[in-house]
């Protein structure tokens, strides 16, 4: 189980391939969140709470590995100023069967969205705005 919190960019394809290499799993799922530009975005600024971030993500990953039979799990989350198109974060899960890998990846994403201390701010040409939490993200937790 690997957790990395970093400002540096990463190549989600290379990370996914490195994650899967050598695992005995038949099923590998990756999710990657990218900076989307709905128009006029200069950058996404991501603030986090050092110390609590690693602790919260570690607890979420531990819960996922307790619920599903995983051969591996990976979480990478960036902070700082990210230009459009760059990856913000990724999760990867590996399991014997696809249902477990998919469920664990969705669980990790749902909890990372609402329980890991990151805050996104959109920097536009005309100003800045904190991204508001979506009710749908909080609601997503109730299915687990």
């Amino acid at each position: 189980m690997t957790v990395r919190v970093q400002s540096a960019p990463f190549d989600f394809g290379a990370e996914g391939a490195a994650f899967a290499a050598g695992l005995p799993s038949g099923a590998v799922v990756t999710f990657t969140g990218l900076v989307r530009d709905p128009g006029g975005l200069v950058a996404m600024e991501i603030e986090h709470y050092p110390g609590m971030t690693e602790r919260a993500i570690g607890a979420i990953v531990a819960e996922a590995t307790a619920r599903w039979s995983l051969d591996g799990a990976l979480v990478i989350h960036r902070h700082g100023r990210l230009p459009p198109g760059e990856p913000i974060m990724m999760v990867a899960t590996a399991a014997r069967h696809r249902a477990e890998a998919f469920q664990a990846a969705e669980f990790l994403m749902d909890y990372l969205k609402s329980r890991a201390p990151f805050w996104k701010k959109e920097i536009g040409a005309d100003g800045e705005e904190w991204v508001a939490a979506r009710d749908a993200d909080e609601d997503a937790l109730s299915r687990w």
Partner: protein
Amino acid sequence: MIDVLYFAWVRERIGLPRERVETSAATPRDLVAELVAREDRYALAFADLSALRVALDQDLADFDAPLAGVREVAFFPPMTGG
């Protein structure tokens, strides 16, 4: 003395990322009341507690949880990571 941390727009409204506070507040809710009484920028940041979250020693907690023994309190809006 307790370390109080602020993140995202809470940090921006209060104008600083962290401070040490002399307090005998029993809960985060009591601590907020003390801060709000100090200055308008705190009142602005804490105007709507339902829009805020609190962590005690880096674990999410309730605004009515006991502060006894806690070294670090953090206030912030709902997380938007992922």
